[in-house]
């Protein structure tokens, strides 16, 4: 019983009710406009039978066409989307796709809304009136011989069944409202929601943002967290042994100073990444096509060896490859200094191979772990693309070697 009643008293149903009524309200100005438009063609009023039926059908079709044309306008689509989202409760997110198929779907939705709304509006006025009438008639003083089509009923005992019909009609109307609302909620996401393409893009954006956040968290963890741990441990040790071992205390102060300085440098780097991220959100992401510019900017002597057609590499793989080269070159500059670098890119049928080698420089002070951090981030991204990555020393070279499969559909 409760389950039967709940839809009738739920706010959702009545919000959807107003959605239907709004459709009916929109119908009226369109109808006025359409009638005015039709009157331009004059009216000789002499049609009968088939001709009349044909004309009426044509007229209705014309009306629908007008509604659909109106629905194609982006502004109408936006308004209709807002109505639907607010009153029907769906779709949760409005699509912003401006392609023709998406607009056509929205236009069909708009036309269906207006026409259903009009029919519903009529039912809305009609059903209660008829229901009330069924309750009044049995008690009405009737002249002995009432005329009209309903006379056989209104003049017999069957008249007492009329209120039952009225109750059924009211119930039908109410549950019809619930049902229409549910149908609207079910269909709205298809008509106005984000397209598959938009959903994929949203998921990709979220994954990117998450990867970026993880990267920053790791950067902070490994750099600033590490340095501050040293500062804390060394400072508490120094304070404890100050009297017995002033020499240790002195060394500790030096270590604290050095660690704090490194932490600040790292923080600077991480904050730089945050700013960079903000910028990169506004500018399109770079791919291997922008490689020449990148290589020119480093100032390192680089030999490049490209095999195969790099142009046909999917964008995601190309972006990743660009980042790997970028990160790799940054690491070279940071750890090995100004040394010759050799870069090999090969686009095979099923995968992209990337090899970056440079002679290992003298270990620069304070460089501990820095390479590892950037490499971890790359490793994670490469594994997302189901690729493999290897980085490490090889004889007196440092090599970063990456293979990323090229699959169709990776955009």
């Amino acid at each position, binding site marked *: 019983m409760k389950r039967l009643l709940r839809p009738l008293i739920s706010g959702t149903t009545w919000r959807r009710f107003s959605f239907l009524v709004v459709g009916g309200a929109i119908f009226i100005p369109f109808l006025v406009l359409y009638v005015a438009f039709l009157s331009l063609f004059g009216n000789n009023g002499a049609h009968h039978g088939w001709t009349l039926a044909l004309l009426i059908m044509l007229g209705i079709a014309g009306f629908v066409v007008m509604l659909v044309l109106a629905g194609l306008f982006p502004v109408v689509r936006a308004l209709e989307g807002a109505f639907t989202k607010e009153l029907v409760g769906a779709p949760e997110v409005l699509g912003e796709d401006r392609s023709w198929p998406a607009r056509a779907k929205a236009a069909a939705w708009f036309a269906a809304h207006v026409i259903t709304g009009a029919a519903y509006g009529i039912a809305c006025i009609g059903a209660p009136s008829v229901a009330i009438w069924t309750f009044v008639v049995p008690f009405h003083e009737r002249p002995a011989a009432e005329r009209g089509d309903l006379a056989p009923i209104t003049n017999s005992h069957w008249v007492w069944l009329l209120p039952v019909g009225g109750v059924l009609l009211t119930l039908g109307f109410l549950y019809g409202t619930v049902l229409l609302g549910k149908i609207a909620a079910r269909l709205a996401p298809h008509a106005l929601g984000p397209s598959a393409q938009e959903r994929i893009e949203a998921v990709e954006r979220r994954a990117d943002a998450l990867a970026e956040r993880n990267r920053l968290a790791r950067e902070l963890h490994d750099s600033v967290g*590490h340095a501050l741990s*040293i500062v804390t*441990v060394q400072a508490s040790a120094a*304070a404890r042994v100050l009297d017995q071992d002033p020499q240790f205390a002195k060394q*500790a102060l030096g270590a604290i100073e050095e660690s704090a300085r490194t932490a600040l440098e790292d923080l600077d780097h991480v904050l730089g990444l945050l700013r960079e991220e903000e910028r990169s959100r506004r500018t399109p992401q770079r791919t291997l096509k922008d490689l020449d510019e990148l290589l020119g900017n480093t100032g390192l002597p680089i030999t490049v060896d490209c095999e195969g057609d790099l142009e046909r590499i999917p964008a995601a793989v190309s972006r990743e490859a660009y980042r790997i080269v970028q990160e790799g070159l940054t690491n070279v500059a940071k750890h090995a200094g100004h040394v010759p670098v050799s870069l090999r890119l090969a686009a095979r049928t099923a995968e992209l191979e990337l090899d970056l080698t440079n002679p290992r420089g003298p270990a620069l002070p304070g460089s501990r772990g820095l390479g590892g951090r950037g490499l971890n981030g790359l490793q994670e991204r490469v594994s997302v693309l189901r690729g493999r990555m290897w980085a490490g020393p090889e004889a007196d070279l440092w090599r970063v070697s990456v293979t990323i499969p090229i699959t169709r559909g990776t955009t």
Partner: protein
Amino acid sequence: MTTVMIVDDEQLIRAGLRAIVAAEPDLDVVGEAADGAQAQSEIARLRPDVVLMDVRMPGVDGIQATRNILERQPEPPKILVVTTFENDDYVYDALRAGASGFLLKRSRPEEILQAIRMVVQGDILLFPAAIRALAAARQDQVASAGRAPRWHGQLTDREAEVLRLMSTGLSNAEIGETLFVSLQTVKTHVGNLLAKLGARDRTQAVIFAYESGFIQPK
């Protein structure tokens, strides 16, 4: 005299911890190691009572090293995992692997020293609140489905009670006072329940209790 060994890949952390620990008359630093592999051989050679073990190290990390030491070594040392951050997944893994407790690198020297002394005594759970938080976070990540392990039905009411009190960080003596039983009785209960759970110490027992849903961390 309690012998301590320090394992950390950062020399400055080792030196700091050594200075703090070595200044105590009842504690002695017998060795250091810079990674998990070195730690294993040094521990086998020096047989310390307590090991301060960094979690993240190149090569064999602290978790793997803890596991190896506890598996391979007869009468292994108590292992205290040392970490930079509290909400570190690795800490939980290390505790699961059998580490007796964990320490934050930002802990005050007194806390570090107290933790070492407590872990040697072995009758109290270190940082019960933090362990509960770690278990709760874990529970969110992994759906705690699966069947309850067999030991759920095998604990006596008293043992279950002792396990719950243990998880709040009470010592054996305190548990005895709460339950109005002697210290010896508590010790017997603890011994029995550790055996039933197959746990090495109270830390592991409490972790098993959280993981199997025997105690709700939240």
